[in-house]
Every structure is written in C-alpha cells, then in structure tokens.
C-alpha cells in the first residue's frame, strides 16, 4: 500500500518536472512496470466518490456542475432512503435503476415514460397492498405521502388485506359460524382507510381498488373478500375529498346496491370524474338507478358496469338517463340480465342520444324485439360507431331486421353479432359492417 502510494506520488511529480524543464528531463522508472498514469484516479473523482459514499449524511447534488452531477447520479446506490432522494433527485436514470432493482417487470410507457412516477406509484401501491389494519401503523403510509405526493398520478391497488387479529379464531370455528360472525363483527373487518391518503395526493387522477386478497391459494376464506359498509363509507368520503380524480375503478369487491348508492351519492357533481368502472360486482336494479342519476350529474365519459346483475328496470333507468345525457361516450353493460325490456329501452334512448359512440350489450339475454328496436334506433342515430350484441339470442329474423337497419345507418363502423343465432347472410353482412368506413357512403352493406 505504502509502496503504491509513494510511486503514485513520484508519478504525479514527474509530468510537472517535465513541463518545467524539458532538457533536464529525467526518466524515473516506476517499480511496478505495469503502472501507468491512467490508473491514478483524479482528485475530482475521489471527491465525487466521497460524496457518493456519504450521500446519506450529506446530500450534495445541485451544487455540482452538470458533468459531475451526472457522474454522481450514475453511481448513487439505489438503497438510499427515500426521504433524501425523493425530492432531491429528478434524474430519470437513477429512478430507472431503482425500479429495475426492485421489480423484474417494468413497463415505463404506461407511466408517461417517467421512471420516477413509476417508482413512487408502485412503492405506494405496495405499501397499501400490504397494509394490515390495526396491525400496521398508519404512519408507514403517512410517512411516504409527503415524499411521493407530487409524483403519484395513479394508484392501482390490486389487493387490500383484512385485519388478521381475529382470523385464527375463525379458523377454529365452523364455516357457517364464520359467515354469521362476519356479519355481526363487520366493523372489525374494515380494510385500509383511504380517507387518510386521498386528500393528501394533489395529482391523483386514477384510482383502481380491489377489496380482496390476491393469490390466497388454499388459504381461501370468505372473509378475505369482504367489502364492509364502513369500508364503503370511508372510500366514498375519500373519493369525495379527492377533487382531481378522473378515473375510478372498483373490481371484484362485492359492491351491492346499498354500497353502490353510497358511493354514487358521494360522487354526485364531482368536478373531474370521467370514467367509472364497477365491473364484476353485485349491482342490481337499485344500483343501476343510482348510476343513472349520476350520469346526468357529472362529466362521465365512460361507464363500465359489466358482469353485474342489472335487469330490465335498472337498464330502463340507465336508458332514461342516457336519453338526456350529453357527455357519455362509452357504455359497457356486458354480462348483465337486462333482457328485452332493457334492450328496447336502451334502443329508444339511442334515438335521442347524440353523443354515445361505444355500446356493449353482450350477454344480456336479449331477443328479437330488441333487434327490431335497435334497427329502428340505428336508422335515426348517427353517432354510434361500435355496437356489440354478441351472445344474445337475436334469431334469424332479428338478424335480418338489424341488417336492414344498418343499411340506413352511415356512422356505424363495427357491429359484433357473434353467437347470436343469426343466419349466415346476416353474419356476412355483419362482417361488412365491421369494416365499413363512415366516410365512405358508397360502401355496400
């Protein structure tokens, strides 16, 4: 060590001498033949390395010149605490390293190509997803909030854990007991309370929530998938407080009519909400009525209520709202049971509506009368582009009527009538209609 140091010193002196007096140049041969000046690190690099080493205690970054800043950022460890880095470092490459170090798969294109945003969003999601009520301190969430509040735009919470405190007792008990107890001890089964979080995120635009456990495997228990009334209350209030929210999705969370009404009542007149997704829940006619009310008291552009239990009356309520609506562009009612009653009502609403572009009515138990109504609606309507009627028993006659209706329509681009028992001719015409261009009036149906 000392030898190398000494040699380094002599080596560093040599060029100075040579520069001072060229004639008196004297060659000093180093002891190590493989040694060369290139191996000696510069003082600046040493300094920078020091900075990197002690970044935790003394973060110096903005004072550096751009060149050294890049050097430091390249070499900073990703294990640094977020309290230091979150608001100090804006460099993408650092955050890219953080993300790649933490998650195997990361598609930055869905995050506006911002690695930092991605990192914080996923970080926060992680914290929420593994938050156990009563067991985990709320501080763990609240501590992160000031760090990531400026970068989080979307939260995709794919699971919410229930409190585990009483679960052992339930395991011992009978299954039927368990079911009855969950009802009585509902409040104790509350999940993470979104109220403490949502009003602190000023840039939040999208929220996806699933009240359920992911990948439970053989540890399945019904109470793992319980969306209690209090949860719903908290969530509704949290949504009400978050004024920047544009997209709200709640999937597979057993949202029934009561909870739906509660959520909708808090979302009425929301200033920015544009998309609402209640897929895979238990909403039936009352909930549909509530959603219909919401349609005309908000700026909703997309509404998804697929795989629910909406029947005729609910669809009628939605159709009534739709006939007055001027904002909604897309409506998805896949896998409901609206039947002919609802289908006809919706078809009549389409006559009046001038904004709806996409309508999905797949798997709705509709038959020929609906096809007749829809073909009449298609003659009048000139905004609808995509219509999905798959998995409805329209029948051969219904297909023909629909074909005739489409021949008078100039806007429809795609009409899906797979598995609707229509004849081959109609199927053929359907394929024509699918690629029919709306600006090409000469195209034959």
């Amino acid at each position, binding site marked *: 060590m000392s030898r190398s140091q000494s040699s380094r010193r002599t080596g560093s002196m040599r060029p100075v001498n040579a520069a001072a007096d060229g004639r008196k140049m004297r060659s000093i041969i180093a002891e190590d033949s493989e040694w060369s000046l290139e191996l000696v690190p510069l003082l600046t690099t040493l300094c920078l390395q020091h900075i990197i080493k002690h970044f935790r205690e003394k973060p110096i970054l903005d004072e550096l010149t751009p060149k050294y800043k890049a050097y430091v950022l390249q070499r900073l460890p990703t294990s640094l605490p977020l309290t230091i880095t979150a608001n100090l470092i804006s460099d993408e490459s650092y955050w890219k390293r953080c993300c790649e170090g933490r998650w195997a798969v990361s598609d930055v294109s869905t995050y506006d190509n911002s690695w930092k945003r991605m990192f914080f969003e996923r970080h926060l999601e992680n914290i929420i997803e593994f938050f156990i009520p009563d067991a985990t301190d709320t501080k763990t969430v609240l501590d992160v909030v000031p760090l990531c509040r400026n970068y989080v735009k979307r939260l995709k919470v794919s699971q919410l854990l229930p409190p585990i405190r009483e679960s052992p007792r339930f395991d011992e008990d009978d299954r039927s007991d368990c079911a009855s107890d969950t009802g009585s001890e509902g409040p104790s089964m509350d999940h993470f309370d979104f109220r403490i979080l949502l009003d602190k995120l000023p840039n939040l635009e999208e929220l996806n929530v699933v009240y359920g456990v992911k990948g439970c495997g053989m540890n399945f228990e019904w109470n793992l998938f319980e969306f209690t009334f209090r949860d719903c209350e908290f969530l509704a209030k949290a949504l009400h407080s978050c004024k920047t929210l544009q997209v709200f999705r709640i999937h597979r969370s057993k949202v029934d009519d009561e909870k739906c009404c509660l959520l909708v009542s808090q979302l009425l007149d929301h200033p920015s909400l544009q998309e609402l997704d209640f897929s895979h829940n238990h909403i039936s006619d009352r909930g549909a009525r509530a959603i219909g009310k919401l349609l005309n008291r908000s700026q909703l552009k997309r509404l998804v209520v697929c795989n629910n239990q909406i029947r005729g009356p609910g669809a009628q309520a939605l159709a009534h709202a739709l006939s007055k609506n001027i904002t909604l562009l897309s409506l998805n009612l896949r896998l409901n049971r609206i039947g002919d009653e609802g289908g006809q009502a919706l078809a009549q609403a389409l006559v009046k509506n001038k904004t709806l572009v996409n309508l999905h009515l*797949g*798997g709705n*138990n509709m038959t020929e009368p609906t096809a007749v109504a829809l073909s009449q609606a298609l003659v009048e309507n000139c905004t609808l582009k995509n219509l999905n009627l*798959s*998995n409805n028993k329209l029948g051969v006659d219904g297909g023909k009527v629909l074909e005739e209706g489409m021949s008078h329509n100039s806007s429809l681009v795609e009409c899906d009538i797979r598995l609707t028992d229509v004849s081959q001719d109609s199927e053929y015409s359907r394929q024509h209609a699918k*690629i029919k*261009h709306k600006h090409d009036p000469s195209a034959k149906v």
Partner: protein
Amino acid sequence: MLQPEPFAGEEADEPGPSVESKNQAERITARRLRIAARNETKTRQELGEDSQGKEDIQEETRKSQKEVEKSKRHMVKLQSDGLELVTNIQVAVDARESDRRTELEEACRLRRDKLENEAKSSQEKFEEITRKWTDAKMKQTPLDLRDAMNSQQQLCEQILGDKNKLISELQQELKASDDHYVKDLKRQAKDIDLLIERMEEQISSLKKSYREDLQQIENSFDEERRTLLTKHRKKWGHQMKEQSEKELRNMMQGLSLLEEHEDLLQKLRVWKAEEYNTDKIRMDTEVQNLRKKLQEVKFNCHLNEEKLDYKYEVLKKREEENAILKSHLKRKIIRMQDVLNNLKSKCASQEKQLKTEEQSLRNDYTRIKQQYIDMQKKARHFAALDAERFEKLWLINEDEVKALAHRVLETDRIIHEQQLGLAWVSPPLPFMERSGPIEHKTLRTASQAAADTLQEETRGDLVEESEGLGDTASGVNRRTVKRILELLCDELGFLVESKLLKLVSHLEKNDQSLIKLDAIFSAIGIESEKDVYTMAEFLMNYRQHGREQRELMEEEETTNNSDFIHHNDLLVALKEFTAQYCRPHGVQASQKSSVLGLIMRDDSEDAAHWESIANVIPESKLRLWSALDTAINKYHTVLTERAELLVETQNVQQQNTELRQLLHLYTTSKASAEPEMQPTRMRQFPM
C-alpha cells in the same frame, strides 16, 4: 395512368387467406391511394412541368411507398383477424357464462319450487300430527294411546325421511355444483391457456409478418437507393468530366492570356523607362527654375516684411492719435449733451413763451377783427362819401369836358369855315344835355328773364310783338327761348333738390317751373338774362349743327319741334355749353364783395360815355384834321426851311469870305494840295 396501379396492387394482394373482407379493405385502400394520387397530380400540375428527373424520382419513391402501404394494410388485416380470433374465446366464455346463469336461474327456480312443495307437504303433515295430538289427548285407553303414538311416530319419521331426502338431494346438488365449479375452473384454465396460446401465436405470426414486411420495405428502399446512387454517380461522373474539361480549357486560355500580358508588360516597362528619363530631365530644369523663383520670392518677402513693419508702426501711431481723438470726441459729446439739455430747457421756456404769445395774438386777432368790422363801417361810410364826391367830380369834369367839346366844335367850325371854306353842320350832341354820372339800370337776372318769358304766355302775343324789338338783338326768338326753358324745366329736374320739389308741388305750374328754373340756373352757373339768351342761342346753333344728322327724324315731327333742339341732345349740349361759357370764379368773387355793401360802380359805360364825348369829332373829321395838320406842318416846315436856308446862306457867304482870306494865307505857306480838300469838307458839314 395512375389509377391502374392501386388496382394492380389489389390484385397482387388478393391471394390472401380471407377473401371477402380483404376485398373490401383493398377497395378502401385503393380509393385512398387514388385520392392521394389525384392530389399529387394536382400539385404537380400546379408546380408546372418539372424536369424529367424529378418525375423519375417520384415514381421510384412511389414504389417504396406502395410497399409501405401494402404492409400497413396487411398488418391491419392481420391484427383485426387476430383480434377476432382471440376475442372469439372471450365471447365463447361469455356465452357459456350467460348459459350457466340461465341454467342457474332455472335450477334456482326449480329448487325453490321443490322446497316450497316440500314445505307445503311437510306443513300438512305437521298439521296432521298436531291434530292427532289433540285426538291422542282424547284417547282414554293406553292401547289407543300407544297406537296413536306409533302413528304419530310414523308420521314424524315420514317427515324426517322427506327432509333427509331433500337434504341429501341438496347435498348432491351441491356436490354436483362443486364438480361443476371444478370443471368450470378447469375449463377456464384451459380457455386461458388457449387464449395465451392464441395470443402467442398471434404475436409470433405478427412478428414474422412484420419482419417480412420490414425486409421487403428495406429491400425496396435499398433497391431504390442503389438505383438512385448509380444514377447520381453517373451524373456526378459526367459532370466531373465536363468540369475537368472546362477547367483544362480555362487553364489553356489563362496561359495564353498570361503570355500576352507578359509581352504587354515588357513593352510597357520599356516605354515607361523612356518616359521616366525625359520626365526626369524636365523636372530637373523645372527644379532649377523654381529655385530661382524661390529666391526671388524670398527677397520680395523680405521687402514686404519691412514694408509691413513700417506700416504697422504707422498704424500704431495712428491708433494712438485715434485714441486721443476719441477722448476729444467723447468730451465733445458730453459738452454737446450739456448744450442739448440747455437747449431743451430753452425750448421748454420758449414754448411757454410762445403759448403766452399765442394767447396775446389771439387777443390781438379778436381786437383786429373788431377793428375790421369798424373799418368796414367806415369804408361804407367813406364809400357813400366817395360816391358823393365822385358825382361832384363827375359834374365838374363833365362841365370841363363839355366846355372843351364846345371849344373843339368851335375850332372845328372855325377850321371848316375859315380854312376849308365849307359849311359847318354841328353833329348830334346827346351828352350835352345830360349831366351827372350815368345811372345804370341794373342787369336783369336770368331768373327774372325766365319769369318774363314765361309770363308772356299769359299776356298774349301782342305784348310780345311790342317788346320783340328789344329782343331781336339777341338773335333769338322769345318764343323759342320760352320753349327751351320749358324743356330745361322738364329735362333737368334732377338738378333740383328733392326737398324743393316737394315744397313746390302745390304751386301753379308756372310758379313751379320758375322755381325749378331758378335752381337749375344756379346749378349750371347761369346768372344773367344775357346768359339765358346766349344759352338759347347756343342750343339753337347746336340744333342746327346736328340737324344734318337728324334730318330724317326731324322730318317726321316737323310740326312744333321742327326748329327745336331734341330733348335727347339737350343734356349733351348743355354740358358743352357749361364747358365753354362757364364763368370764371373771380367775377363772382367781385360780385361777392358788393354783397358786403360796397356798391361798386360799373364804370364800363363811363369809358364809353367819355369816349363818346371824346369822339365828338368823328374819325373822318379827325383824318381831315390830321391831313390838314400834316399839310400845314409841311407848309410850316417849308417855311422854316426857307428861313433857315436864308440864315445859312448868310453864314456861308460870311465863311466864304473868311476862307478866302485863309486860303490866301495858306497859299502863301508850304501846303498847296490839302487846303483844296478842306473846303469841300467844310461845305458838307452843315448838310
């Protein structure tokens, strides 16, 4: 030309997997291409006919574009197909799910019915049991009771059996649904596997086709690039060759030019050297001359310097003198100012004096005026006295004159009677009877004359005739004068003041015209009657003078106005008259003095009077007298000459005697010739 290409592309693409949809897509794309091509041609037409090369490039690029378009279409088709393939599974699953739901619903309904039926039947049975319980209470005998109990037990067992059967059925259903669930799960897993498989397939096929298309596009681009490269290289080589040739030519030209220029330079150099030599010599001589001149100039300069010095001195002295003079003048100015002040004060005092003087002079003036008035009085008085004296004098002189006349007449009579021996007739002597100064009848003024003439009308013609004699002298008929006056009255109304006209309007016609005429005369400047007549005469003359011109007109109105001036000419004529006869103002002034009261006597007649007296002896008589006088004088002179000649003869006789004595004396002395001359001279003297 452009349309067939997309169709060709369509044909090329047609052998694809799905015919119908493909055909449609082809059609759409073909249309799009056609629109694009049309736009392109339009733009090209707008740009004008460009070079051939550009078109080639466009065509070549079109090949690659076509390729891109084709691949795009292909990809879209593939994607839609793939999507359909994948979504088919979803749709199928959806269908299955909906089917399951309907089944579930059906099962639910059936189960519910079954349960209801069961409940009903069990209720009936239960009711039966309860009824039997009451019956059993009625039973008295234990045997009956036992039977009843047994039957009850059987019934209960029946119910239980039913219930158990139901439970087992339900449990079986549950199991079946469990199985179903498991199967569903498995099927879903399979479906998902299928989905994934298809997606992967799709992805791989898409990848493959993308790669192929990319390859094709790249190939086409490469080809295009190569063709372009070769073309450009060829072009480049060609141009390079041309360039080198051109440069070579230019170089040759430059070399020849260089030689020419070198020759020229040599010539110029020689020529310039000669010129330089000649110039040098010339310059040397010039330099010498200039040196000489310089010296002269220097000398002159020196001289001038001295002169200037001297002059400077002189000027200095003069300046001093001027300073002295200036001070003198200043002093003088001061003095003058004093004088001026004195004069000013004097002037002021004089002004005062003058004022007082003026005052006194004014007083004097008033006094003198008073005196003048007094003097006038005196003058009048003296005038009266003078007139008296004049009359006296006049009488005395007249007496004297008369006496003299008498004497003259007497002498005339004597001359006639004694000298001529003629009978003497005394001439008429009117003045002898008269005595005292001539009393002039005052001149009649013009207005009076006019009045007279106007009044004659009324008096009639007789009067006129009687007075006509007096007026004939003026040569104008009274009547004509009257007419003229009337005419004047009519024509010259403008000279009369309007005020006067107003005053006059109520009077008689004659009076009116009289007053008007008075005003008119005063305006024209006519004062006396004579003037009136002269005017009338002038006007008549004027008429006659202008008659020749106006004869035709006159002939037509021969009656009254024939001898009359035309009223149109009157104004012109009057103008001329006033120009000719206007009186000088001096006369008027003299008349004005008479207005003062000093009646001036008109002595014009006096001279005539005295003349007439003086001319008692008429001219013929005077001539007679003068002839007589000259004859008598001649006679007298002859007589006197005779007397003188008598004396002379006596003197000459005496001289002769004396001279004879003298001659006698001289003849005795030396000179003999001269004395002969002397007596002739002596004789000539008395002549």
